[in-house]
């Protein structure tokens, strides 16, 4: 009986293909460690809209004020929300 069970386990494992490479879990762990935590992402807890037009469309219906940040940079504008230039 034990031999039959062992044979079944071997055959099942063979049907599923080779076992998962341990390196996969290492990569997933490195991702978890590199993903910023909630505290460092607090900037994204503000109620952002991508444009003044979109912000005013919402403010009129929600009756909330709007805060506009404006800046210039001679080589290229930047995306304050995402953080990229």
């Amino acid at each position, binding site marked *: 009986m034990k031999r039959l069970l062992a044979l079944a386990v071997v055959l099942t494992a063979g049907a599923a293909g080779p076992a998962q490479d341990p390196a996969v879990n290492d990569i997933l762990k490195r991702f978890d460690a590199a993903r910023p935590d909630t505290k460092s992402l607090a900037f994204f807890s503000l109620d952002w809209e991508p444009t003044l037009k979109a912000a005013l469309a919402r403010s009129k219906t929600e009756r909330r004020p709007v805060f506009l940040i404006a800046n210039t940079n001679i080589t290229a504008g930047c995306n304050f929300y995402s953080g990229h*230039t």
Partner: protein
Amino acid sequence: MRGSSLAWPASLDLLRPFIVTYWSGRTTDDMPADVRAVVDAAGMTHQHLNLALFALDADGKLLRSTIPFVRPPAFRFDPAAQGKDFAQQLTKMLDGLDLPKPAERKAKLALPDVPTGLRIYLTFGANRLNHYRTPTVEALELPDSFRAALRYPDEARDVAGESLRPMLQQFYPPAIMDGHGGCRKIDARLKLSPAGSDGERRWAILRGTVAIELDNKNGTRYEGPLTLAVSYPKDGSTPKSIRGTGTWEFPKHTPEGRVAETIVMTAAIESRPE
């Protein structure tokens, strides 16, 4: 500014009653009409705005405006000192306004996102000027060619960097003052290899190096490893999830073109939806 003064907890709390938005361009000549109307109403006439702040009521009428004093060298690049000072300036700007109580938003993050695609978090190591204290977060939709390039490999195969360009071109640092926010050249040497099965999913690993040259005057160039774990349905070949990391050390130049320091940039990459 984004990483220290604006992200300082007291500054964030002062901005919670508002719907927050931004405009940024090369000069005020680039402003759309609605932003120009606000800037004009504030009596700001200069072609350049290092930073200008405006509080508007729910109908878009200008309530308050200011050009804050944001000069990191004056605070020896100390983020705490910069943040506290900026919060004081915000307090003064908003003093006396009848603002609504902020909604219960404090703990809820609204990160850049897409229905299907990738989200990339860029974080940065210690640097002399205390830049990059708030992560850069990008979300991007993926063309079919991207998924096709990562189809399940029956055996290890090379993957052309060009097919992954929508992702690779996001691996650049902000605040490169002499650049336009893009890459001049990307060289990637990447291999996708099968990595077994956990019973429910099959896995593959993308490994290799990515070298990037920025479009700036100094031709900033950096190269580093990229590793992704890609999962697939047990009976399918189209990627189901992608997660991984990349690491680079990029040189930061002085205005005179000298390398002042090298800064570690780490990318954490995840597919969306989770």
